[in-house]
């Protein structure tokens, strides 16, 4: 089989068949073979039935985005064949149930079928058919059964299910070895590692790990796709890492509990999607006026209303930048990949404490749910609680005016009197409708944003050569596919935005005003980032490449677009 720079494996089946766990376990096996992976998962809002698919990009170097083409397809059901046969590359392989083989020869080009009795190889029906396929896959990719057994033992701790899965894996593995003995490995193992330095991590896990390593003390999260994974991770590690996860009755309660916890001194987190953030907007401003630190993770999905519950979108940017009535300082950051989700979550906790205000980390479903190989980040981190005292202070003023807008915080129980007040208040926190006080307190709060821009805001990252024919501007999960696509071009660069409020207007303006041709790429209908750039820099980006079908930008989408534009430029 043809070896490509990035090999694309697709696994499909119905919800409940174990498509996701098959993808995860096989990705872990690939790590042992020396490969790096990136997995894109697509599933409907259903528990059973419907069509689930995982696409795994496999390469010697870290792949960063999803692709549409397929080099190998694992079809756990008939539906998968019908939906994905058309995406197969010339010479691709298909692992499918033996009973399906005769019906699939309609593919025009050469495809190699590997029939395996998934449903009744063991006389049992799924849930183990996915593990039979997994055993078969490991055999086809030249792995050893011991590697898979090790991963199964880690995944299935319950004795009975571990035994069942080990048996299923061996059945699938042995079937391939016996029935396709002359077949050479689909991908040759690069190495044979008993322990890989990499782990497979998704965005929700990265956020959770980031929060824990930043000293998380309290989280209240109401379940919602695509951030429920954060709940699952945080809820199960409370005792070992000494924080509290509390399940609230709704998102209004979630944010208010977190504000209460933060007021009492705990590093606090909420996570939600756009719909939940609608309910949180009220509390968002409460954190703003009471100057209570708070980290908000907003994992965007198809909107409005229930929208596309399990699909991705980048449609909440304008909303998050403007949510709540009136003005208060908010810091808004957007992660472009799993590593950034980890880093920005950690940064958000320090920023929230330092500026005593809410910090939003925007993610999208493509980051929350998608996973990739990554070596566990161990970059140094220092907890910065900002101006905070628990000592008794004579004539303490919680909201004292200062040159940087930041006043020294204290905690209830410290003996210092203050009121955290949702009403406009004076320096002590007493309600005040005085005109002069209103002006000075409003200016003090807003000054914090200017201080943050000066002291902490990072410039945007420009990938690729400064002198390019074409400049792409984007944000969020588009980053991965853009970077993957850019490997084929030496005359295209990419401006990736992470700081959205405050906004690095000067740097963006400098880069874009020098660009010869600009494309804005984003996953929403109204080009919200392009609008923000126009607002902040006056630069209007005419070519907007937008997607709002809930699917990610596939690498091919970006490559095709670049080719089209470069051709147009060449033809004048």
């Amino acid at each position, binding site marked *: 089989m043809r070896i490509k720079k990035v090999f694309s494996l697709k696994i499909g089946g119905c919800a409940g068949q174990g498509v996701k766990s098959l993808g995860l376990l096989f990705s872990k096996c690939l790590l042992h073979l020396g490969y790096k992976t990136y997995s894109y998962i697509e599933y409907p809002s259903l528990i059973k039935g419907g069509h689930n698919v995982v696409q795994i990009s496999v390469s010697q170097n870290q792949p960063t985005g999803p692709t549409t083409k397929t080099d190998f397809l694992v079809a756990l059901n008939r539906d998968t064949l019908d939906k994905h046969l058309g995406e197969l590359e010339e010479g691709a392989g298909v692992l499918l149930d033996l009973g399906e083989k005769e019906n699939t020869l309609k593919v025009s080009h050469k495809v190699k079928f590997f029939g395996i009795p998934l449903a009744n190889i063991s006389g049992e029906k799924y849930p183990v058919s996915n593990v039979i396929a997994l055993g078969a896959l490991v055999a086809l990719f030249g792995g050893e059964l011991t590697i898979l057994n090790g991963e199964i033992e880690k995944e299935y701790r319950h004795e009975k299910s571990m035994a069942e899965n080990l048996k299923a894996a061996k059945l699938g593995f042995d079937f391939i070895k016996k029935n396709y003995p002359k077949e050479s490995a689909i991908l040759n193992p690069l190495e044979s590692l008993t322990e890989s330095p990499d782990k497979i991590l998704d965005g929700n896990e990265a956020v959770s790990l980031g929060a824990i390593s930043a000293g998380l003390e309290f989280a209240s999260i109401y379940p919602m796709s695509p951030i429920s994974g954060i709940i699952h991770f945080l809820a199960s590690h409370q005792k070992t890492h000494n924080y509290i996860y509390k399940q609230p009755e709704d998102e209004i*309660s979630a944010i208010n509990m977190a504000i*209460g*916890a933060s007021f009492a001194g705990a590093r606090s987190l909420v996570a939600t999607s756009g719909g939940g953030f609608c309910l949180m907007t009220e509390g968002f401003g409460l954190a703003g006026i009471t100057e209570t630190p708070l980290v908000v993770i907003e994992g965007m999905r198809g909107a409005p209303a229930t929208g596309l519950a399990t699909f991705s979108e980048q449609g909440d940017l304008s909303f998050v930048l403007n949510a709540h009535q009136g003005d208060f300082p908010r810091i808004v950051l957007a992660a472009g990949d799993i590593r950034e989700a980890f880093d920005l979550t950690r940064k958000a906790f320090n920023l929230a404490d330092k500026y005593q205000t809410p910090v939003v980390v925007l993610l999208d479903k493509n980051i929350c749910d998608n996973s990739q190989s990554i070596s566990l980040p161990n970059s140094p981190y220092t907890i910065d609680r900002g101006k905070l005292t628990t000592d008794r202070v004579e004539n303490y003023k919680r909201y004292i005016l200062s040159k940087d807008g930041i006043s020294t915080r204290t905690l209830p129980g410290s003996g210092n009197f203050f009121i955290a007040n949702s009403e406009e208040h004076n320096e002590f926190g*007493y309600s005040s409708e005085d005109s002069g006080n209103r002006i000075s307190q409003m200016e003090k709060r807003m000054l914090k944003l200017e201080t943050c821009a000066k002291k902490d805001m990072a410039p945007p990252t420009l990938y690729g050569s400064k002198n390019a024919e074409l400049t792409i501007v984007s944000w969020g999960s588009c980053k991965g596919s853009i970077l993957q696509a850019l490997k084929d071009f030496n005359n295209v660069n990419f401006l990736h935005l992470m700081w959205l409020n405050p906004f690095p207007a000067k740097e963006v303006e400098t880069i874009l005003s020098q660009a010869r041709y600009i494309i804005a790429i984003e996953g929403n209908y109204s080009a919200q980032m392009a609008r923000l750039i126009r607002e902040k820099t006056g630069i209007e980006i005419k070519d907007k490449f937008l997607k709002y079908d809930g699917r990610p930008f596939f690498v091919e989408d970006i490559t095709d677009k670049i080719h089209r534009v470069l051709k147009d430029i060449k033809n004048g």
Partner: protein
Amino acid sequence: MDDESLTTPYFPTWCPGCGNFSLWSAFKNACIKEHWDNSNTVLVAGIGCHGHILNFIKLTSFETLHGRPIPVATGIKTVNPLLNVFVFTGDGDCLGEGGNHFLHACRRNEDLTVIIHNNGVYALTTGQTSPTSPKGYKSKSTPAGNTDAPLNPLALAITTGATLVAREYAGNIENLTSLIIKANNHKGLAIIEVLQPCITFNKRFTHSFFRENCCRLDPDFNTANKQKAYTKSLEFGIKKMPLGIFYEV
């Protein structure tokens, strides 16, 4: 500790005769008796006339949004269980805007003391019908009379899981003080409904009305019996407004 140390530069802005004055006194008396100060106590309030109380007691506090004092207090108590946490809330704040939080705090039996300032009217917004206004009640929002049945906070609290449920009339300052102390010592959620007049907007629930119609629960009333407490909590009418602890486990 004395009244002086609890005094702020602001004198209450409530209407003269408002039930909040006696509630305020009762709470300050409890603070003095129990040494509740800035090293051990936090007050949390919602929005409404009741919420202004925070400006008149020099204890560290959080004036939240309308309807949200319970979740804010829950967050505070969860991360610092050593603090005495008091929630001041109103009938509109607690049972209208914050109704869902009230139910779930009861269900979780959070270790808080919740004082519901119940005057049966939205007063700060100048007199509209509230969730506890009686049927037929005429107000600016119900000129032809309220068509909706009132909520009964005590019955709700008992059925949904609060473990100390009591009612007092704002004018009984001494009783209210000892009830607030008892509620704070109680492990679990303590709900105190305080019947209080709004002398400006509720012409029906006046001081004299409460004095005439409130009665005290029998000293032998079995407060550990949930069914009986529930049945008792449904009694509410002329000459039949029981005060005291309905339920305590």
